[in-house]
């Protein structure tokens, strides 16, 4: 028996595709939603029904609570999966879904409310005895108060929107002189992305690792951890490469970390899948960073090492079923890596690179999983997050998963937009990465002057011109291509 007759997926891109796939395996029909620019997007094709929800601008479509609930009601969806980003951590949305008699696949509103803003979460965790980074989480949000608190904490200071995630609006401020401009910019970004501009300040600790624990609670008294992920490779405070297990933890640290994560989840009265993020300083001390009350982008590495399907578990928990797994049954095997492929130009300060995907071929092979939101012909617009796909590899050990990832990245062909694939390859090839010597400043330390693109080798250019010549020849020839060369006429397809 399917737990829900139909599920609406209130998201787009790779996560909407990925959620739809688990639903399909479970025999649950799905409803996609799409904004005007996403009418032909990949996530729409994966669904059984698709409802237009408004213009490109997210706040009028993917962030429009009333429209999403109306779409669910019209199509008879019994539950809504929010994915990540957008409304996934929005307490009002979770409440509104419940008020409409539907099931929100995620924690209930009060949990989002308590943990969804960093300010409240820091206070709750400190009260529960989980250590937090020294900082400021007060209600007085005047610019002058924040500037004074920043000076008290000591430079550099990390500026974080109390709401939000994904690195948006986060900034390291290195001196009092920079503070006012940085605060204003973070507040603007925060307002645009999350609809609020309350800020939290934290001491910026250099050379820290970002380590997080996946948790799962069923609301019937069971709260489990699904081991950790390390996400220290970041760019602009946005995760780029994640892995599990972390190469920076020993067995004793793991025990402590898992216990802290479960304690945090219990303190938050957590239900469904969530993530407790920690900062691990060079001395091996943990600090609670925040709790993400949703599925993470990087959940696939946990799936690879634990063998669990987190979306399936989310759906079962949302349906009120107790989790039958015991903690000791959740064991990891091998090592998994995830590389996020972004439409950003690593040679030009990571400028977004929207455009049409003229060719996309995901890598294939044993131990490789690609979760993609694009296909050849997809349009990458300026309206949404520039993440195109996640390449996930699994291996018996970290060496094998790195080997597989390097082979996979070299076969990930994306044409039409500029991607960060060259930087991902450089990171994977770096000796310090191979040794597992990771910290959140890894890219600045090791690859700050990475940007030295090499021109295509002469042989490649000649081959490309030959390819175009062949295409032209045959497109000048008589109408239909011959059986011997059926593809010739396609070589030249123009995408204006």
């Amino acid at each position: 028996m399917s737990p829900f007759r139909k599920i609406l997926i209130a998201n787009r891109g790779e996560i909407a595709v990925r959620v739809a796939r688990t639903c399909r395996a479970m025999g649950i029909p799905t409803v996609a939603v799409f904004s005007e620019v996403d009418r032909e997007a990949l996530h729409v094709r994966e669904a059984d029904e698709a409802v237009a929800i408004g213009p490109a601008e997210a706040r009028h479509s993917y962030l429009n609570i009333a429209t999403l609930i109306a779409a669910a009601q019209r199509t008879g969806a019994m539950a809504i999966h929010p994915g990540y980003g957008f409304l996934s951590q929005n307490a009002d949305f979770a409440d509104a879904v419940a008020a409409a008699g539907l099931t929100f696949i995620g924690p209930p509103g009060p949990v989002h409310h308590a943990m969804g803003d960093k300010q409240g979460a820091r206070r709750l965790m400190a009260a529960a005895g989980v250590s937090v980074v020294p900082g400021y989480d007060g209600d007085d949000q005047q610019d002058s108060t924040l500037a004074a608190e920043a000076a008290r904490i000591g430079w550099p200071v990390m500026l974080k929107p109390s709401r939000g995630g994904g690195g948006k609006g986060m900034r390291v401020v290195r001196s009092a002189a920079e503070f006012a401009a940085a605060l204003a910019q973070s507040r603007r970004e925060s307002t645009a992305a999350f609809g609020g501009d309350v800020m939290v300040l934290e001491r910026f600790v250099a050379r820290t690792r970002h380590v997080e624990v996946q948790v799962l609670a069923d609301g019937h008294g069971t709260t489990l951890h699904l081991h950790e992920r390390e996400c220290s490779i970041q760019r602009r405070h946005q995760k780029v490469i994640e892995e599990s297990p972390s190469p920076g933890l020993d067995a004793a640290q793991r025990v402590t970390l898992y216990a802290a994560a479960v304690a945090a989840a219990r303190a938050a009265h957590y239900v469904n899948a969530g993530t407790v993020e920690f900062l691990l300083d060079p001395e091996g001390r943990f600090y609670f960073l925040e709790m993400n009350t949703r599925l993470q982008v990087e959940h696939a590495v946990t799936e690879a090492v634990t063998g669990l399907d987190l979306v399936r578990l989310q759906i079962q928990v949302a349906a009120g079923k107790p989790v039958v797994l015991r903690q000791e049954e959740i064991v990891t095997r091998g090592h998994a890596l995830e590389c996020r492929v972004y439409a950003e130009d690593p040679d030009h300060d990571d400028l977004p690179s929207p455009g049409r995907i003229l060719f996309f071929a995901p890598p294939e092979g044993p131990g490789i999983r690609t979760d993609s939101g694009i296909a050849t012909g997809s349009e990458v617009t300026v309206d949404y997050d520039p993440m195109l796909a996640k390449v996930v590899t699994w291996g018996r050990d970290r060496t094998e998963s790195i080997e597989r990832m390097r082979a996979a990245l070299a076969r990930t062909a994306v044409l039409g937009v500029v991607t960060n694939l060259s930087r991902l390859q450089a990171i994977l090839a770096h000796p310090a990465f191979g040794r597992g010597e990771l910290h959140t400043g890894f890219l600045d330390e090791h690859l700050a002057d990475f940007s030295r693109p090499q021109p295509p080798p002469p042989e490649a250019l000649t081959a490309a011109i030959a390819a175009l010549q062949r295409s032209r020849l045959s497109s000048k020839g008589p109408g239909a291509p011959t059986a011997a060369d059926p593809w010739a006429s396609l070589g030249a397809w123009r995408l204006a």
Partner: protein
Amino acid sequence: MIRLLWGETELEVDPRAAASLDVRPLGPGTFVLRRGDAIETFHCVRDGDAFHLFWRGAAYRLEELGEGHRAAQRHATGALEAPMPGKVIAVRKAAGELVVKGEEILIVEAMKMENAIRAPRDARVKRIAARVGDMVAPGAVLVELE
């Protein structure tokens, strides 16, 4: 010779050398090159006057230059261009104001990230060619400095 532009760099290809290569199409955008026993599968897609090439794990965008065509002078002195398509969300300066090197002049948002257009040198603003709310295309001149 065929002249190609890769970024700001001009490259040349001998069309006869290309014509003599054993290159065959395998599917949309996919080709195979053979030289003796060596074999190389690559991807190549035309896009107007440009084409995109995927070769041994790396992607390249190339523009074909016509006869006598010169690479455009992309950075006319004093003109600041939009680095990517996006929406102007803030304009900090007006025509006639002085700016110091590194100072924000305006901000373009795309994919939820803000990108500041900053003064490359100390100068006086001659013209601001965009307003808050404008959607701008890459290469569009946003600011002229004196």
